C-alpha cells in the first residue's frame, strides 16, 4: 500500500475529523487562581463525632481561611460551646492517634498531641488578634456544634513557613464532657487550669497540604482520532484497486467491441 492515494486521503481526513470536534470552550469561569491554596479534611479526635474541611489561600502575606465542621459538642453550661481553633506548627505535621494518650485517661490532650502537630502559631479567632496569644480566648472562638468560619488576615512567618513545608496542622478543640471517662471528667486543662480538660482537648485535627493545581491528565487520545486506521486503509485499497480493475476491464471490452 506504500504511496497509495488512500493514505494521503486519510492524512487529510484526520485533521478534518479533528476540526469537527466541538471546541466549545469558553475561557472558564474568569477567576484566575492566584496565590497558593492548602486544604485539609478535619477528622474527629477523642471520639468527638465531628467532621469538617478547611482551605487556606495565601496571597502575599494574607491568608484567607474557609473552615467548616459539624457534629461537635453544642453547649457548655447552657451556653453555645466555644471551640477554640488554631494552626499548629513546628512538629511532624501530623495528627495524633490514641496511642499518644500517655497518661491513659482515654483522651489525647492538647499537650500529648504536640509531638505530632506542634505548638500554636495562629489562632483562628472570629475577631481581634490571630496570634498564639489569643489561643485560649474562648470569647473569640466559634461557638456551637457546627461552624462555617471565613476570615482573611495577615499571616505570620512561622505559619507561612509551616504551610510551605507541609507541617501546618489545624486543630479544633472542645469535647462534650459527657463523653469523657470519669477520670478525664475530673481533670483540668493543662493549658488553662481554670477550665476542665474537655474544654481544651482536641476534637478535630487536619494536616494541611497544598491543593492540587490544574486539571488531570486522564486521556491518551486513543479514542480521539480514527481507530482501526489499518482496516480503513486495506478497505480503501481494495475498493480503489477493484475500481481500477473494473475500469481497465471496461476499456478492454469496449476496445474489443
Amino acid at each position, binding site marked *: 500500500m506504500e504511496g497509495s492515494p488512500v493514505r494521503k486521503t486519510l492524512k487529510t481526513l484526520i485533521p478534518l475529523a479533528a476540526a469537527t470536534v466541538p471546541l466549545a470552550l469558553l475561557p472558564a469561569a474568569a477567576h484566575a487562581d492566584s496565590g497558593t491554596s492548602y486544604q485539609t479534611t478535619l477528622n474527629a479526635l477523642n471520639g468527638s463525632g465531628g*467532621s469538617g474541611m478547611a482551605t487556606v489561600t495565601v496571597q502575599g502575606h494574607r491568608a484567607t481561611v474557609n473552615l467548616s465542621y459539624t457534629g461537635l459538642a453544642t453547649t457548655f453550661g447552657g451556653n453555645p460551646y466555644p471551640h477554640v481553633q488554631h494552626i499548629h506548627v513546628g512538629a511532624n505535621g501530623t495528627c495524633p492517634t490514641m496511642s499518644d494518650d500517655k497518661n491513659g485517661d482515654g483522651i489525647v490532650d492538647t499537650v500529648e498531641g504536640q509531638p505530632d502537630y506542634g505548638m500554636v502559631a495562629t489562632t483562628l479567632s472570629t475577631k481581634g488578634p490571630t496570634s498564639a496569644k489569643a489561643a485560649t480566648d474562648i470569647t473569640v472562638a466559634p461557638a456551637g456544634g*457546627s461552624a462555617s468560619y471565613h476570615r482573611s488576615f495577615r499571616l505570620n512567618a512561622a505559619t507561612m513557613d509551616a504551610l510551605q513545608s507541609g507541617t501546618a496542622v489545624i486543630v479544633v478543640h472542645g469535647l462534650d464532657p459527657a463523653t469523657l471517662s470519669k477520670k478525664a471528667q475530673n481533670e483540668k486543662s493543662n493549658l488553662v487550669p481554670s477550665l476542665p480538660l474537655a474544654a481544651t482537648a482536641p476534637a478535630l485535627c487536619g494536616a494541611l497540604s497544598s491543593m492540587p493545581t490544574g486539571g488531570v491528565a*486522564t486521556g491518551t*487520545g486513543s*479514542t480521539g482520532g*480514527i481507530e482501526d486506521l489499518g482496516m480503513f486503509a486495506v*478497505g480503501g485499497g481494495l475498493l480503489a484497486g477493484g475500481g481500477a480493475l473494473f475500469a481497465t476491464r471496461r476499456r478492454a471490452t469496449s476496445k474489443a467491441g
Partner: protein
Amino acid sequence: MPRRIISLAGGRRGVIALVAALAGLALIGVAWRAQVSAPQPHPSGRIDVAAAAPTADLGRSPSPARSHPLGPSRPVRIAIPAIGVHSAVFPIGKTRTGRLGVPQPGPRLNQVAWYRRSPAPGQPGPSVLLGHVDSVEGPSVFFRLGDVHPGDKVRIRRKDGTTVVFTVNAVRDFHKAHFPSRLVYGGADLTTPQLRLITCSDYVASIHHHIGDQVVFAHLTSVRHPRRAAASGTRAEE
C-alpha cells in the same frame, strides 16, 4: 448461471474487481462501526453548585441539637447507573509537580481513583474522584462521563460499609489552561458533603492532546448505613 454472472460482470477480471470492491466497502463499514469517541457536551460557563442543594434529606430526621456527619472511610466502589459505570476505587496522591495523580498502566489503569487528601465521600466538602476517558487500550472508565446529566445518581460504597448517594448538579467542561482548581477542589461551601468527578475532554488530534477537563459536580442526597452483621457476607457489590 455462474457463466451469466461472469459475463455480466465482464469476465473473470470483472468478478475479481467486484469482489475486491465489495470487500473493501465491507472493511470500511466494519472500521466505521468501530469508531468511538467520548461524548463532548457542555461548554464551560457559570457553575451554580446548588446553593440550595437538598442536603437535609440524609435518610434520617435531622437533629436540631447535634448532627452526626460521616467520618473518614475511603471509597471502595463507585456506580453511575446512567452511564453504566461500575468500578473499584483506589486512593491516589499528587505528582511531584503538585498536580493530581492519575491511574497508571497496570491493573488499576481503568479504575476510578480518589484523591486521598480530599474528604472521603460523605464527609463535609468536595470529595475528588477521577478516571481516564481513554487509555492506550481504548475507552476507559469515564469514557461516557460527558453523558451524565443533572439529576443522575452516583453511588459510592465506603470501606466502612456505608453507601453514600450523590445527585448530579452540573457537568462542566473547562479549558486546562483555565482550570478553576479552587472551585473544583475546594469551593465556597465546605459545609455540605459534595462530589467531583473529573476526566479529560476535548481531544485535539493535531496536537495529540486533550485540551479540556470535564467535571461533574454532585451533592450528597442519601446515606445507607450497613446492615448489622448479617449483611456483611451477602451483599457482593452495591
